């Protein structure tokens, strides 16, 4: 009897092991790989593929290999729905990483919430993408988040209390950043001494900058993309406003357009999803392996958020011990991992709670300052 039992046990073990070896877990990838926004889709895919390759090399998820199935949706909501349906119905994937831009993400999200499949986007910053969808997560932070983080950085690292804001009244991104920055500053006990508006079409910001200079702030939050921001920095010097400038991820690239890069050196600080010269272990390892795999350094923050999206999903699958939708979603909700973009967990809205990378410039080159906790 005992012999028979151990025989059965052995058979069970062997067959178990065999099935574990044979299993693959399919994860669907939705991204624009062609078309106008293909650059973002490709950036995400490179990050995801790098993680999955490393994961499989390290034994996969409890021995199961992970297979990514990518479909191009050209940044189009209809195509995204077709691709999503194909992933779910024909390929029968266990989870989805995507979509990349906001509208396809919204379209797919409405379908995904019906069946509760775990889904995570690395790049869609529209607030509504995860709204009312308990199974939809994201690995990138939202705009208000980085504005609040910058206000905290100003308090903690720069030690400034009198702040000014210059924003673009015609742009949602800019208005959102400005409001969130001002709100957090007030919470921090900092004072907003000037709150001036312009538009991105302006080429002359001197009127606003003169007003701001008159209020003698200790730092200026520039809620603009890098093009107008370069003008603002140059003109601020002309009106004698010599204070640190603060900004968000849209500042990335300013050093390529500004007439005098020296104006930026240790003067402009901005939040970003990732800094390629970050010094955390995870970031350094990511930089190395990415460069090795693709023959180029990470060039876009979505390389890193893509990597982290795959990380969050696969870690949750490991923790859940199955690919059951509800179990994986629950495990994702409980995420607490160290990603390449920092320590990562989710709030009630499935948005990441994580640190932002503060970057400045030294000799005209982007230079990592620190990871600012929220």
């Amino acid at each position, binding site marked *: 009897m005992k012999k028979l039992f151990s025989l059965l046990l052995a058979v069970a073990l062997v067959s178990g092991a065999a099935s574990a070896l044979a299993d693959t877990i399919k994860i669907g990838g939705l991204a624009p790989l062609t078309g106008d926004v293909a650059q973002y889709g490709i950036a995400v895919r490179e990050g995801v593929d790098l993680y999955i390759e490393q994961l499989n090399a390290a034994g996969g998820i409890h021995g199961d290999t992970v297979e990514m199935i990518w479909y*191009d949706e050209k940044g189009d909501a209809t195509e995204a729905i077709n691709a999503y349906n194909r992933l779910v119905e024909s390929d029968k994937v266990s989870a989805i990483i995507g979509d990349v831009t906001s509208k396809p993400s919204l379209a797919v999200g409405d379908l995904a919430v019906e069946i509760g499949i775990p889904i995570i986007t690395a790049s869609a910053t529209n607030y509504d993408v995860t709204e009312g969808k308990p199974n939809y997560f994201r690995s990138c932070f939202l705009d208000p988040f980085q504005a609040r983080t910058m206000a905290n950085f100003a308090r903690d690292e720069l030690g400034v209390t009198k702040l000014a804001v210059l924003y673009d009244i015609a742009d949602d991104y800019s208005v959102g950043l400005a409001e969130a920055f001002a709100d957090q500053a007030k919470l921090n006990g900092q004072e907003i001494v000037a709150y001036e508006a312009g538009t991105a079409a302006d080429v002359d910001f001197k009127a606003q900058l003169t007003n701001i200079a008159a209020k003698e702030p200790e730092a200026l939050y520039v809620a603009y993309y890098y093009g107008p921001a370069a003008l603002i920095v140059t003109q601020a010097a002309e009106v004698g406003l010599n204070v640190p400038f603060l900004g968000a991820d849209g500042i990335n690239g300013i050093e390529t357009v500004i007439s005098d890069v020296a104006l930026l050196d240790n003067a402009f600080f901005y939040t970003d999803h990732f800094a390629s010269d970050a010094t955390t272990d995870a970031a350094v390892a990511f930089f190395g392996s990415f460069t090795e795999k693709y023959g180029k350094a990470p060039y876009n923050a979505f390389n890193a958020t893509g990597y982290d999206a795959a990380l969050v999903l696969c870690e949750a699958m490991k923790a859940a011990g199955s690919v059951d939708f509800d179990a994986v979603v629950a495990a994702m909700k409980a995420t607490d991992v160290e990603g390449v973009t920092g320590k990562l967990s989710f709030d009630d809205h499935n948005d990441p709670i994580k640190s932002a990378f503060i970057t400045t410039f030294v000799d005209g080159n982007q230079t990592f300052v620190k990871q600012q906790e929220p």
Partner: protein
Amino acid sequence: MRKKLQSYGLNILALALLYGLMSFLIGQGAINKYYLGILLSAGIAIIMAVSLNLTIGLLGELALGHAGFMGVGAYAAALFTKNIGMDPATVFPLTLLLGGLAAAVFGLIIGIPALRLKGDYLAIITLGFGEIIRVLIINLDFTGGARGMRGIPRITNFTYVYVLVALVVAVMFTLGRSRHGRAILSIREDPVAAEASGIPTTYYRIFAFTVAAFFAGVAGGLYAHYVGVLDPNNFGFMKSIEYLVMVVLGGMGSITGAISAALVLTALPELLRQFSEYRMLVYSLLLIGMMLFRPAGLLGIREFSLTGLLSYVFRRCPHAEPEEREMPQAVAQEAPPLRPPVAEDAPVLLSAQRLGIQFGGLKALTDFDVTIHAGEIVGLIGPNGAGKTTVFNLLTNVYLPTSGVIEVEGVNVVGVPTHEITQVGIARTFQNIRLFRKLTVLDNVKIAYHNQMQYTSLEGTLRLPRYWSEEARANARAYQLLRVFGLEKLAEERADSLPYGAQRKLEIARALATNPKLLLLDEPAAGMNPIETQDLMATIRNICDRFNVAILLIEHDMSLVMGICERIVVLDYGQMIALGTPDEIRRDPKVIGAYLGGE
């Protein structure tokens, strides 16, 4: 008619069977959500392509803003659904109708100014308007702006799409084969001839454009409630081009061609998924290949017909195309006294007094006086450039005279639009034959019956009794008329396949079909050999007697003019230099001078 009804029945049965089969497969899960999604997208694309085909293929105008109308319909329908406060699913048909109407209103607003232009200009204008719609959507608050609109309930299902595709396609077929459809086709073929045949071309241009916009709006409503998220950039130029490609690939003017192209082009990118990033490249290569090997499109201007296919399969009659075969023998017996004969001492039919026109400094015609009596044959001769065709263009109001009056039966007709001149009783032919070349001989004639039929576009589309009775009568009359010219055997041939002489005759037949009192023939014998000319002379005399029309005829062939004209008017340098009987004219020194030079 019975045969047609049989064919309708067959098609409806086939549609119902297909619907039953598809619903069953969807219910069974044999068609999963992925395939269903492609089917729905394809259905929406079919409506778009078929409606665009109305503008591009049938009307023959290149419009590049079709996706803009889809956008209007999509946003209108979505806004309605979100604000109705009722269960949106129950009012969905109404929602779609509203989407269509909103797009139709935009179509009308854009069509009225834009359709005054033609060809490339219209293409650019519609392109501009398409962009305006997109930019408006981006900049308006209630549309959600650049962020798009989200949270639109997904109501669109297979039944809605299937039924609407079937409806739109059916409407396109029935509308296309009614007097309104023929009017639209005639504009594609030759707007000048269409106008001269009594077709109000501006009206039908706008009509076709608006109907196309309406269906695009309906498709937009379906789209909005299928995707659930609207992005204004989805209704831009590239989207319009996508539908344009479908129409071109299917074969411009072919409804079934547009359907097959819409199906193929929607399914193709999905079938090519295994090529990953290269799939759009493969897709483009396939497009180029198809255009190279089938430049006229998948179906050209032909249509797929189920009845045709079935009779082909069963070899009942290898050439079944039931519509035009209906040559009702009984009706054909009726002789054609289309107008009561006029009395011997014929009253004055047309009188033009002191008619003149100036083009800038050039006096093309001055003080032209002519009186034509009912049933008379009058010749209009003169050297090249004397202003003969100008007289015709003035009498049919293609040009507005700078001086003088034209009276038909005592009523001044100056300023009456060209297409209404036929109703006054004047019809014309052209110096260079202007037939509706790609249409059948029969249709060429039936187009000219346009104003003698009364049924509305709705009656025509729904095939109500008045459609049947009036069409049957028009068919019978057209055959009679063709028989007079010995063309009845060629009734089914394309007009441009006819020999030259027959084309001339057909043009005269078409002009006669408008039931004129005065027929203007512009060099009917041009390019004919002496035997054909003899034949033509007999025909003209025959027409004059049989149809009781007066004829004013421009001709260089003196034997013809002298042989049949009762009176002759001679023009030189825009001046009338002689008027009289053939004998008088032959001896008139001014005429001899004008033709031979010198006194």
